[in-house]
């Protein structure tokens, strides 16, 4: 589960990770009040107004602005709140900004120069252990760094029995070229960061940039925190941080019905049991000349009610020109699913797009008979190949 920068930072801070301080605001008035309060707390002279959306690259889209006076805080917050922010990660339609984080200016002048680093904590799937990934090239797109200068990316594996050890924290600080007080601060920073990662059941932390300030403090200027959804039952306070306005409304609705649905951009909807078969069905649609409009796994119990709900979800997408239902009936009987399709069709009324139903497995023949004899505009198939050909035929019409 993704959370906002301000939420991620509050979690980090609660584990002793030094952060760029800030206060979240919903309106320009609140933003100005937040700026005043932040000045009283930190002595900051300038402020950064940061759009809070679940996507990176906010600065590139104009969602992060420096304000040098309270009037400017008001102006920038007014511009950003309510804007449709387009970043490289949002897609062309962008995301609406509902909140801004008023953050302290941390690039103030001082005895030494500032430097930016990259740091993330994540699972190394190959070893089944967490790693700290870090680089001297902070503030940049890490994929780009990995491609152009892979030798500037370092990795440190965390032994689950011990956690990050002090010598590892020192190694990280050395590799980042730090010395003196900044070195000590970095060892504290990375140690606290790993502790926070493990304690919160996170699946990824990405801090980009980690800043060495001009007075040798080490702080998280941004925080991308991704929590393991399977572990949220252990963290009800974090579960409450979910912001459904950041999610696709149809995906939220599908989730409420325990349907695993991901909206895509294509023209052929699909309804499948099992995640792997669902991905494979999307691939078949593509091979047949269409583009998948969604991923939808109805799960192990594809009964009539779920089938109907799944149809309703798929039909919310106006781009859908055809629907492919692909169920491999194992424990689920195909004839029951077929009856579910027929009932759903009648219950929804006129479904304006052709439907191809492929039912294989237990009672597949009976299922095909139910579909064929229903008198509905539904094409039936048993073999996957037949279903793929039917999709191609329907798209040509």
């Amino acid at each position, binding site marked *: 589960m993704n959370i906002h920068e301000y939420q991620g930072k509050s979690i980090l801070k609660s584990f002793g990770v030094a952060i760029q301080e800030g206060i979240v605001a919903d309106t320009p008035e609140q933003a100005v009040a937040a700026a005043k309060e932040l000045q009283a707390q930190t002595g900051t002279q300038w402020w950064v107004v940061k759009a809070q959306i679940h996507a990176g690259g906010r600065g590139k889209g104009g969602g992060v602005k420096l304000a040098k006076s309270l009037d400017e805080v008001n102006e920038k917050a007014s511009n950003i709140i309510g804007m449709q922010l387009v970043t490289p*990660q949002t897609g062309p339609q962008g995301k609406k900004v509902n909140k801004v984080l008023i953050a302290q200016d941390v690039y103030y002048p001082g005895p030494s120069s500032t430097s930016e680093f990259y740091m993330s904590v994540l*699972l190394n*799937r*190959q070893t*089944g*252990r*967490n790693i700290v990934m870090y680089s001297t090239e902070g503030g940049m797109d890490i*994929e780009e760094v*990995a491609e152009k200068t892979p030798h500037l990316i370092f990795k440190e594996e965390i032994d*689950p*029995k011990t956690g990050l050890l002090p010598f590892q924290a020192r190694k990280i600080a050395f590799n980042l070229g730090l010395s003196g007080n900044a070195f000590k601060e970095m060892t504290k920073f990375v140690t606290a960061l790993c502790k926070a990662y*493990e304690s919160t*059941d996170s*699946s990824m932390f990405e801090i980009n940039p980690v800043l060495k300030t001009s007075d040798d403090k080490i702080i998280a200027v941004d925080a991308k925190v991704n929590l*393991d959804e*399977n*572990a949220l*039952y*252990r963290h009800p306070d974090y579960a409450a941080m979910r912001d459904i306005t950041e999610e696709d409304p149809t995906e939220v609705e599908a989730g409420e019905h325990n349907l*695993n649905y*991901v909206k*895509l951009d*294509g023209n052929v909807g699909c309804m*499948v*049991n*099992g*995640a*792997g*078969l*669902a*991905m*494979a*069905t*999307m*691939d*078949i*649609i*593509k*091979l047949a000349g269409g*583009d*998948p409009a969604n*991923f939808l*796994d109805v799960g192990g119990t594809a009964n009539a009610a779920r089938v109907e709900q799944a149809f309703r979800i798929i039909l919310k997408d106006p781009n859908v020109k055809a629907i492919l239902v692909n169920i*491999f*009936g*194992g*424990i689920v009987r195909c004839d029951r699913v077929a009856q579910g399709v027929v009932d759903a069709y009648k219950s929804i009324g006129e479904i304006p797009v052709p439907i191809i139903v492929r039912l*294989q*497995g*237990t009672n597949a023949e009976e299922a095909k008979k139910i579909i064929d004899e229903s008198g509905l505009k539904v094409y039936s198939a048993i*073999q*996957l*190949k037949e*279903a*793929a050909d039917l999709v191609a035929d329907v798209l040509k019409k």
Partner: protein
Amino acid sequence: MSVLVNKDSRIVVQGFTGNEGTFHATQMIEYGTNVIGGVTPGKGGTTHLDRPVFNTVADAVKHAGANVSIIFVPPAFAADAIMEAAEAGIGLVVCITEGIPTKDMITVKEYLSGRNTRLVGPNCPGVITPGEAKVGIMPGFVFKKGRVGIVSKSGTLTYEAADQVVKAGMGVSTAIGIGGDPIIGTTTLEAVKLFMADPETDGIIMIGEIGGSLEAEAARWIKDNNKKPVVGFIAGQTAPPGRRMGHAGAIIGGADDTAAAKMKIMAECGITVVDSPAVIGQTMAKVLSK
């Protein structure tokens, strides 16, 4: 001979008396699997499905000679169940449970290292050796006995592949559903090695999906050690980056995670890669007849 499970496997069901456990244990018994009993803490000494219930896995080993366990306990308790089975000396643990926190699986992986316990799963359909033992939730009738080994991250896609194999006039030696989580016990490579060493397996079907590097690892090993034809399919050629496709591990995080990247490596390593999941069976028939 087959791999992992056969008619002599003595299976204990952890989470025996729960809904899932009861339903699938019944199906396994009907299939003819040698289910010796189950474990439900606090219900030891009773019977369920005409078989003894034990308080601990160690009791099931001691009193009923269990050597394989299948786990249906809820996600919050599943990691503990796996480690209990390992501690009791169970050689093969098949964990069906979906939704185990990653942190718990990191602990499990650490716990199992250096022990003689093989884990299959979690979040998997299990293992079946047709006609001998079904240790999982797959529909048994789809799997007819034969000489093609199947390793797959996906449940229904495994059934699909098995069905195509049977329709193409062949059969399955053993099918291993390894699961779609980020941390799993038996990897694609380990399953492939088992099949390469199995005299009753002539060809291997390897079904993967986006995310992780298991398929590439297996492919590189196959390149150097290939003795049998391998047909491969990767689900998710049309999946967008950064979105989780149902399985916790099915997410494109980097360039190596994509279906295209995996299919390229597999093809370079001598695997017959199919674009369409509809032609897995016929392709296997073709490469085996060469």
